[in-house]
């Protein structure tokens, strides 16, 4: 039996991959990681396929006990990791892989400066996919683990009984999700709004409200006025759609958004900036700027190049004092084997 035992669940920790596509016409939301870039990077650190499912840590992470011979894992995102081994605690860095062994306890702490981080394991979790995906949509209990978030006592089965014999990997630097205004394409219902509403939307600051979850972010800022009614015939949505109900306060839809919605949408965040808004925590100040389809395509190209550069630029962190590696391989032999590999 190889698994991680959930000692404490965290605030809302779920198994997610890059989303469940193909079922929206049946009313099933896509779900998936709010920060898909973090998942891809964590998987790269572990040698996994880029879409392998991991844990999404939402605001505050879980405590996990290793109940396998060993496991290699990696967290990506601004999160604190604490390893307890033989009653000694050590801080572990995010953005690199770590080798843990049976009896180790990993505490994933608070996510600081963002809403989410990702924790992935080498080889992935041994869970059955549901409708072709390991993403979890808790509102309708769809996904692995009964479609529920982690809870105390749960077992997360591991595909690998032990970690592969290889050196650890680290990102050379924390991934830069970008700064400056969030890029949007106006529409699909830009024509439902007054000119002033569009001007305000593209010039003012909007603050991410406390009312934020995996479905979306409520944005507080200048009220956006519709020319007529706020309601439209219900229609399909994508992550990044910015819908505006009658109260004029926009809602930026994220991974767990419903498949159809009946509010006019002033604009849609482009795919290159989705991970950035997906990880935005309450209090984050957002500005928006309009781009064309061609600019959005160029931005996606650029963002994919950044992800590839981060993957290609991964380094062996072995040079420093890596307490985990030292402990796990009886101090001296650890250093030797790291050099030999």
């Amino acid at each position, binding site marked *: 039996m190889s698994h991680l035992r959930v000692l404490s669940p965290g605030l809302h920790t779920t198994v997610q991959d890059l989303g469940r596509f193909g079922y929206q016409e049946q*009313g099933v939301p896509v779900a998936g990681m709010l920060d898909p870039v973090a998942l891809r990077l964590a998987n790269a650190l572990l040698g996994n396929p880029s879409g392998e499912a991991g844990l999404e840590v939402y605001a505050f992470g879980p405590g996990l006990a290793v109940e396998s011979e060993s496991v290699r894992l990696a967290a990506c995102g601004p999160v604190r990791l604490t390893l307890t081994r033989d009653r000694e605690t050590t801080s572990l860095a995010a953005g690199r892989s770590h080798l843990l062994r049976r009896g180790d306890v990993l505490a994933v702490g608070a996510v600081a400066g963002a809403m989410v981080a990702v924790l992935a394991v080498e080889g992935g979790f041994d869970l059955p996919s549901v409708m072709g995906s390991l993403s979890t949509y808790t509102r309708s209990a769809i996904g692995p683990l009964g*479609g529920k978030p982690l809870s105390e006592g749960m077992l997360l089965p591991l595909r690998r009984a032990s970690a592969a014999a290889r050196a650890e990997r680290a990102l050379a630097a924390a991934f830069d999700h970008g700064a400056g205004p969030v890029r949007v394409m*106006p529409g699909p219902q830009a024509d439902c709004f007054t000119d002033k509403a569009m001007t305000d939307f593209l010039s003012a600051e909007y603050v991410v409200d406390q009312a934020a979850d995996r479905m979306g972010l409520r944005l507080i800022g200048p009220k956006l006025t519709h020319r007529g009614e706020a309601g439209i015939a219900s229609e*399909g949505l*994508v992550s990044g759609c910015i819908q505006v109900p009658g109260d004029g306060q926009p809602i930026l839809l994220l991974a767990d958004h419903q498949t*159809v919605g009946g509010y006019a949408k002033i604009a849609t965040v482009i795919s290159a900036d989705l991970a950035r808004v997906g990880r935005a925590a309450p209090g984050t100040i957002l500005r928006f700027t309009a781009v064309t*389809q061609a600019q959005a395509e160029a931005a996606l190209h650029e963002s994919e190049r950044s992800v590839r550069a981060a993957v290609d630029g991964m380094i062996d962190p072995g040079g420093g004092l890596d307490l985990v590696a030292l402990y796990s391989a009886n101090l001296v032999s650890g250093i030797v084997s790291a050099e030999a590999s």
Partner: protein
Amino acid sequence: MLIRDVGDTAFSVEFDGNAEVMGLRAAIRRSLPLRGLVELVPSLRSLLVCFDPQATSRAEIEAVVAALAADIGGDAMGEGRLWRIPVRYDGPDLVDVAKARGLSVEEVVGLHSTAVYRVLMLGFMPGFAYMGGLSAALRLPRLATPRLRVPAGAVAIADDMTAIYPWESPGGWRLLGRSSVCLFDQSREPPALLAAGDRVEFFAE
């Protein structure tokens, strides 16, 4: 027909009615595989076309879809599957609906269970089918204050549509009865019982 931008990974094709939406969906399905197509989301009056901008370009996929859209006929909807669904007409709003429309309870049940409905789209929650074709004599707006808990299986009406709640949830539709039919089962393929384009009849059990 109007094509609207929905970010850089989707566009919507908007029509006057649902029949064209179904017609375009059918036409695209006949043309598969279509490079870069991720999925189609039909709704009341539009079809959302989701694509992978790294596998195709907006210009390429829009050209194919627009050509297909220009060619769909008025009778594009087709027959669809026909479902006959048993309903126990004992909903908490049955008497109020009858009073509000000046009907007897029996007349409400009769009107609801003699129409043939058309599934226009799914949404709101997995397996929730919006069905058009409700008798004009039964049309009422949603409740001013939605219920916090509508039970799974509730058969409900709102405006010109009827629906069955697949899950317990909050809801503002008026409840006429309940059905024990399983509308969504994630271990089944497809998980949703009803699909856009299907026809549905209800009968009192």
